[in-house]
């Protein structure tokens, strides 16, 4: 089987979990004997080509006269870009985006996107919409000249491309929802993004959701037929290099860690309140908030207001190595997300033998057993879980040992197997549809 896959990023040039997930899945698919052609807006040349044929959309020229996707493009010509369009976005780029783009910008696409060649930035910058549209044009060009059996598009940015490729080739389309607009923006959704997501799922033969939590949102909020939405959980890369980090703690206190964007969606404020509850009873704990975001200043002020600054630390953005060093000294990892389609970070913590407390409003809560699950708003339960893991050794020992084993079992290979099942369904459906059309 040959898959034409549309993504927005590919390791090592990633801003968050989307690239990691695409890479893991692609590797898993290859392991199952599936061939993947992966299209990214911009290839830097140092991407891992071991598993996949990577196509650089910037190198693709298009024939403007065809403009098969024009009808579709009309719908997205004018789009207001809010600051948080992207799933799994990392901490640093996020800051860049909000700094450069606190105002929304109206795009009137210039003719450059219809030029023969176009240099993608591949970033999530102010030209995002322009790039999304150009990407779709490129997709139709690729779809015309490449041989493949099925199209797989990751997240809304690539849906226009997926749809264009489907229209050109007549091959079935699978779209992969790594996040919904509701996860990114709460109730104040960007209507245009929502429309692109919905259109993508409607046009798709099958939809993959990263959790049942996301699947429910897709069915309830986007009105997609439940029969074609299938949950495939993410996994985590597992190799020994992750255990080379041995960090010595320079203080006796235990460490409780929050890691992620300091934004509404990640629930940092609940973490601070729970920390306060714990510190009222036990001063031998240090809380660490790693990451940055629009709520950071508010969090620092709140910590000061609660007079717990001496036991509460802000690190700002951390790179991968620093993250692993932080995990190495952490005793508890907390993910209090308000809405989390999946949530790979607890798996990474568990991989480093750190017990985790996760919110029930996350996809990953559906598959983890050795984790304490709480409602993100229930700070009493959160504080109690943290306290329990810090004080009752039988529990933390069990979580350290069993949690690691559990994560080892979550393999991209098995996720890939499920994705292949979805492909097969999509292929069967589309041949059925073709036959039906022929008959009528």
């Amino acid at each position: 089987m040959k898959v034409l896959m549309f993504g927005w990023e590919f390791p090592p040039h990633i801003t968050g979990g989307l690239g990691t997930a695409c890479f893991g899945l692609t590797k898993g698919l290859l392991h199952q004997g599936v061939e993947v052609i992966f299209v990214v807006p911009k290839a830097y040349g140092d991407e891992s080509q071991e598993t996949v044929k990577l196509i650089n959309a910037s190198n693709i020229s298009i024939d403007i006269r065809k403009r098969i996707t024009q009808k579709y493009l009309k719908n997205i010509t004018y789009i207001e870009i809010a600051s948080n369009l992207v799933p799994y976005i990392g901490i640093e780029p996020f800051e860049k985006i909000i700094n450069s783009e606190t105002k929304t910008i109206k795009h009137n696409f210039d003719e450059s996107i219809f030029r023969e060649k176009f240099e993608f930035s591949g970033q999530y910058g102010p030209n995002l919409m322009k790039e999304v549209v150009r990407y779709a044009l490129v997709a139709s060009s690729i779809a015309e000249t490449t041989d493949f059996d099925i199209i797989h598009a990751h997240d809304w940015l690539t849906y226009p491309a997926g749809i264009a490729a489907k229209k050109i080739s007549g091959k079935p389309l699978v779209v992969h929802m790594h996040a919904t607009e509701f996860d990114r923006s709460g109730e104040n959704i960007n209507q245009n993004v929502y429309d692109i997501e919905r259109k993508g799922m409607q046009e798709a033969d099958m939809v993959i959701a990263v959790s049942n939590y996301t699947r429910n949102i897709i069915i309830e909020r986007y009105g997609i037929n439940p029969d074609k939405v299938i949950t495939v959980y993410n996994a985590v890369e597992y190799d020994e290099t992750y255990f080379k980090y041995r960090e010595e703690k320079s203080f006796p206190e235990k460490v409780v860690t929050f890691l992620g964007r300091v934004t509404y969606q990640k629930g940092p404020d609940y973490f601070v309140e729970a920390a306060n509850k714990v510190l009222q009873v036990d001063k031998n704990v240090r809380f660490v908030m790693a990451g940055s975001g629009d709520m950071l200043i508010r969090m620092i002020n709140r910590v000061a207001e609660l007079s717990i600054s001496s036991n509460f630390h802000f690190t700002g953005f951390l790179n991968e190595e620093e993250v692993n060093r932080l995990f190495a000294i952490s005793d508890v990892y907390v993910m209090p997300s308000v809405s989390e389609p999946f949530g790979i970070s607890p798996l990474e913590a568990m991989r480093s033998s750190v017990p985790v407390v996760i919110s029930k409003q996350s996809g990953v809560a559906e598959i983890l057993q050795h984790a304490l699950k709480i409602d993100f708003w229930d700070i009493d339960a959160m504080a109690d879980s943290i306290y329990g893991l810090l004080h009752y050794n039988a529990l933390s020992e069990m979580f350290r040992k069993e949690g690691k084993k559990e994560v080892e079992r979550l393999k991209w290979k098995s996720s890939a197997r499920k994705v292949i099942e979805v492909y097969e369904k999509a292929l069967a459906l589309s041949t059925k549809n073709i036959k039906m059309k022929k008959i009528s």
Partner: protein
Amino acid sequence: MKAICFYFQVHQPNRLKTYRFFDIGKDHHYYDDLQNKYIIKRVAEKCYLPTNNLILNLIKEYGTSFKISFSISGVAIEQFEKYVPEVLESFKQLAETGCVEFLCETYSHSLACLKSKEEFERQVNMHRNKIKELFNQDPKTFRNTELIYYDTLGVWVADMGFETMLTEGAKQVLAWRSPGYLYTNCINPKLKLLLKNYRLSDDIAFRFSQREWDQWPLTTEKYVDWLNALDPNEEVVNLFMDYETFGEHQWAETGIFDFMRYLPACVFSNSPYTFKTPSELSKLLQPVGYIYANNPISWADEERDITAWLGNKLQQDAFDSLYELENKVKNCDDLDIQKDWLYLQTSDHFYYMCTKWFSDGDVHKYFNPYGSPYEAFINYMNVLSDFELRVNNILNTKYTYPPLNNNSYNNNEIINNMEKNKKKKNPQRVMKQRTKIKSKDIQFSDLLNISLANIRKIIGPIDVETIAIAIIGVEDEIKDVILSNMGMRKLAIYEKLDIDYSQIKQSDIIKARKIILERMKKLIS
């Protein structure tokens, strides 16, 4: 002879409330009274009352030919007394028929036998006395929590004067042998053993309403056919199950009540079986062999061992932490501590921490108040931490309590005074004087000569207002003794009391003191 032996287990734990770590040292009430009340009332309505009624009618109809046995845990009895006394009344009615045997078990449905012989025996005796008191029967048959049994335990039970014990017909002890005979303990053959026929028991208790079961629906005729199909030499079929099978595990709609209603008639007309109680059987039957059980067996899960309660590290840690306190608790002369000590031993708390049932286990989920075994563990350990604090407090300083959340001036003053008094008084002197008190000429000031535990007993049920009035104008020493022993909760209420002292007459004060005096007299006599 061929007999059917029915035994039903009646038990409801005192489930714990959500108890956070910041409650440690502040809140000493551990139980979810509302939920416990709700559950026991619901089960009483759906199961205990209608089934007792059904059995009473069967006994009326068939006279002494229909017999059954019950074991009711002490903690369940207490909840009946508190919330649904009519259930106890109906059990008493059953006891009066003479066709119902009440078995003995550990008072708090505990796993004490796995840890402490002394505590185990104490609880068995407590339960034995309770059964005597309620049903006027001296139990001669013992069933341990969840039918847990092993060789040495059998010896302990025999030494306590029991003739018969019930346990599971587990494969690991029976091997090729059938549970259809009487066996004995392998060390002390005087102790007879009746073993559960788990296939025929579970047909009623678990499979009765399962539509995917190929034998569904189960009729009395079919069931009696199965009984008749057993080896003709077998003498007894032991059907042991939770009483909640009727109406709760199996809802009334499944026809479980009708099944039970028509079973005796069908047995009498279509089979040679009769109904017997465990005590009768152990007299009537000849034992055919020994049971060897080096490791504990039980009636739980496929494994039929104790891993449902002590199978993982969490359960073992909680269990060990609890029994580490045993010796300390024994030295605590405090009613509340003794009560909590019993309730915290109930096996259900450990059952909720079981991690075996991630894959299956509808039974484990039954009335389980927790979302996960880890929540159950954390909650229990929080409670246990508070309990340990209290025990240590009582042992270390018999006068002070952990300070209130926001120490008011009053409170500090009381504690300071108590410290002073502590220095003044020699505990031995108190002991001497205590023996002198006679109930006839007891005085209010004698409060100073009574043990603190007794003071707590005396003032425990008296409302704060009465106490407040009674101590108007008394010596500071007496006032302090009372205030520091009424518990933090009452003390807090006392401090907030808004009494207009000018409105209180001398007669009111005397009246209030009389209430306390009455209780003192009662206690001392």
